[in-house]
Every structure is written in C-alpha cells, then in structure tokens.
C-alpha cells in the first residue's frame, strides 16, 4: 500500500527546492482539491509539499491597488472590508465557495491553479485585470490572468512553479464590480454558470436620479429606463464568464459593444446576445447548454447592474440582485 511523505517548508525557496529534488511530488495548499483527488485515487503522489506555512504567500496589500498572496484563504478575503468595497466581485465569489469549513482552508491560489472551468474566483480576477505573479527556480515572472488559463485543469505554470500572488490595479472612483454565481441551491454548490463584471461609469444626468432608481423596488426595465434617462455610460467594461467554455473567458465582443454607450434595455438585449454568442456551454449533469446560454444573457445584465449599483450606492449593503417584473 502506498502512502506519501508530507513536507512543510517555511519559505518559497525551500518549497521550490524540495519540488526540484523529490520524485512524484505535488504542492498542496488548503487541500480541499488535492485530498479529494487522492481519496478518489485520481492522484497518487509520493510526496506532498505543503504551502500552508509559508508566510510570504499570505499577504493582503491594499496600497496602490490590491495584491493578495496565493496562500490567502477564502475566509480571509471575505473578512476584508477593503476588498468587499473596492474589489467586490472577488468578495462575492470567495464568499460563496463551498462551505465555511472549505473557505477556512482553501486558498485562491489553489482554486485558480486547479483551474476548473467553474472556479469561482477566476471570473472576478479576469474582470479585475489581475496579473498572476509566479515564482520558480528561474525566478519571478508576471502573467496576465487571461493568459494564465489554458484549459480544463490546466494553467501556464512550468514544472515546480508556485503562484506567489495576484496583483490588481487601482481602479479609482466610479468603478464597481460584481460576481453572480448561478446555483441550484444556496450553499455547497458549483455554479451552473458564473458571470463577473466590472464597470467604470459616468453619469451625464443626475446622480440622485440613478440612486433613486436603485432604491425603489421596481422592475428591472424601469430601473434601466431611469439610468437611460440620466444618460449613464459605461466608460470601461469587463465581462467574464465561467462554465461556458473549457476555461473561464472574457466576453470581449460584448465588452466592446457596451463601452461608451448609454445604458438602455435594447443595449442590454444586444450585449446579452453577443455574450451568449461568445460562450460555448455544454450539456452536463450540472446543467443544459441552452439554459446556460440563456443565463448568460440574463446574468450579464444583472452583474452589470449590480456593479453600477455599487458605484452609485457604495454604502448600502443590499445591492440590486433580482427584482420582480
């Protein structure tokens, strides 16, 4: 019967050196993916190198943007007020992964490196223009996250490399983001699809008018109509979609169609269709392709509206999610 040896390096260098010197070795962070794969016999490492005790991987630096270490747990991100306010999509995503028990140990680095098409933190990092800082035997390098995902469970890591962290720029004022995870039940679920959005807005008309729109409980159409009246424009846009392709992807054509235009119901229809056309969802036991494509349309609109709401009412804790209508 085979087991494995378990190493607990205290520095990045130690970890990389160990990886270089051992046969059949795998990195393990929170363990919520690796330990499952070992139990299912899909992984049979002879050596596990734990990244849990490396303090250089667990930083959250909020000066000049946001820098988080690959070893930061989901719970640590959820607790962080700065991230919740200014990088909300990431907060949205990490708060909905698995369960409390999972979030307490699972790391964002691990989630991204496992690279499931459904990885919740992937779409937020895509819309937040994250750069992945990777460190290995040859030193450090930075890769834009859009180039980091290669396919299902595949990322652009060379042998022995570790994700040191994710660095996101400062977006300044008037920027909001959101991530919507579409699930069947309210916890312990993978997304049927996930949509993240980030917008930087400019309002030609009345800001108070826009605020008013979101404060009333009304139909989505009426909210959008009001924003149109106030000539709200998305000056900069990012839209990312998960579980609709072999890897999390940006809806670049939809972004281009939205950028610089005044919000309107017709515009949302249009970008919803474009985003849906950029997606290639499959049928699986977790959802049907036609439904996922429909949800791209619906949730792109909602993610953008939620992002806009966060700019307009930054101090509110209840943001636009879904309104009857």
């Amino acid at each position, binding site marked *: *019967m*085979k*087991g*494995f*040896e*378990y190493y*607990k390096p205290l520095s990045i260098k130690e970890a990389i050196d160990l990886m270089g010197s051992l046969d059949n070795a795998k990195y*393990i962070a929170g*363990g*919520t993916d690796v*330990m*499952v794969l070992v*139990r*299912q016999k899909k992984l049979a490492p002879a050596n*596990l190198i*734990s990244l*849990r005790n490396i303090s250089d991987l667990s930083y959250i630096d909020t000066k000049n943007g946001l820098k988080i270490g690959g070893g930061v747990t989901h*719970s640590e991100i959820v607790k962080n007020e700065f991230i919740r306010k200014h990088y909300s999509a990431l907060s949205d995503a990490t708060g909905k992964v*698995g*369960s*409390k*028990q*999972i979030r*307490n*140990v699972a790391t964002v680095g691990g989630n991204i490196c496992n690279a499931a098409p459904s990885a919740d933190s992937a779409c937020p990092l895509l819309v937040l223009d994250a750069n992945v800082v990777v460190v290995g035997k040859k030193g450090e390098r930075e890769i834009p996250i859009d180039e980091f995902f290669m396919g299902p469970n595949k990322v652009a890591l060379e042998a022995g490399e570790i994700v040191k962290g994710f660095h996101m720029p400062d977006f300044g004022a008037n920027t909001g983001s959101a991530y919507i995870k579409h699930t069947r039940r*309210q*916890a*312990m679920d993978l997304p049927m699809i996930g949509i993240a959005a980030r917008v930087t807005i400019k309002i030609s008309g009345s800001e108070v008018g826009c605020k008013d729109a979101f404060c009333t409980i009304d139909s989505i159409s009426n909210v959008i109509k009001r924003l149109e009246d106030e000539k709200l424009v998305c000056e900069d846009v990012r839209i990312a979609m998960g579980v609709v392709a072999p890897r999390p992807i940006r809806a670049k054509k939809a972004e281009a169609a939205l950028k610089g235009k005044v919000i309107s119901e017709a515009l949302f229809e249009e970008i919803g269709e474009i985003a849906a056309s950029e997606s290639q969802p499959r049928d699986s036991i977790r959802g049907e392709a036609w439904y996922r494509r429909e949800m791209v349309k619906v949730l792109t609109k909602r993610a953008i509206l939620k992002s806009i709401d966060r700019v307009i009412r930054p101090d509110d804790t209840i943001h636009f999610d879904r309104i009857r209508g």
Partner: protein
Amino acid sequence: MIQYILTGSGGNMKKEITFTLNDEKVVVEVNPEWTLLYFLREVLEMTGTKEGCGYGECGACTVIVDGQAVNSCLYPVMEAEGRTVTTIEGVASKTGELAPIQKAMVDKGAVQCGFCTAGVVMSAKALLDEKEKPTEDDVRESIEGNLCRCTGYVNIIDAIKSVAGGR
C-alpha cells in the same frame, strides 16, 4: 499461512508531531498520509467525529483548528502540528456538563439520529466563539456545510440563535 504484521503503510516512517488537542498537549507518532479524521477515529479511538462522505461535502467530520471550523476528512494530520485542535469530545466540561450550545441542541429538539450533530456543534461553536451576537445569516452560514437529513435544520438554527440571544 502468511502472517501479515502491520507496522505502517507503504513502509513510510512515522513522524512525531506535537499539538494541543482538547486543551491537552499531545505528542504522537503519525503516518504522514493520515487525515486528521483518520487519526482521531482510528488511532485515538475518539469516534465522536464522524465520516459522512470523506470528501468535504457533508461536514459530519467538522473539528475546530485554531478557532476555525474545518473538515477533518480533508485535513492532513501533519498540518495539526503546533496548532490547537478541538473536537466534540472537548466541548462539554471535564466534569461532563454540557456547553451552552450542546444544551441548546438538546432543549430545542435539534437532535434526531444524531449523526450530523457533532459536526453541527463544532461549526456552531466556532461561530459562537468568534462572534458575540451572530445574526441569523451568520448562523445559517456557519452550518451551511453541515448536511442534516432528519431535522430540516429548523430547530438547529433555533438552537444556535438561542445561545446567541441569551448573551
């Protein structure tokens, strides 16, 4: 007849680790591939912590490590080194008095078959130790990873809220 004498699996050497378990310092020899759950149940015969699935999806194996609820079925025992671990056996007082959360679970009818109960108590305890006045949302969040088929969760949520409310 071949006699097979167990010394450990795969010829791996045992490692000695030290950690705090239910307020007691323990020095133990472990196989590196053991999970914390396996170690608790099979080696220490502390069977209060249950295995409901073995892959982190039901919470029956929940224990508290350094104040945080974790699934012990996915927690390598080697990572317990130097940390503080609390299991269900360490919740009641040393003289057998139920802790407030345990008493509340009994009083509010939140225990039926009981298989999920230890995990629920640990998740709830982690929350109540961390927050003085958790909200209903906090309460549901704390046990969202603990599956229960018998109670429908209603009385469990009531029980945890009653401990918070009584403060």
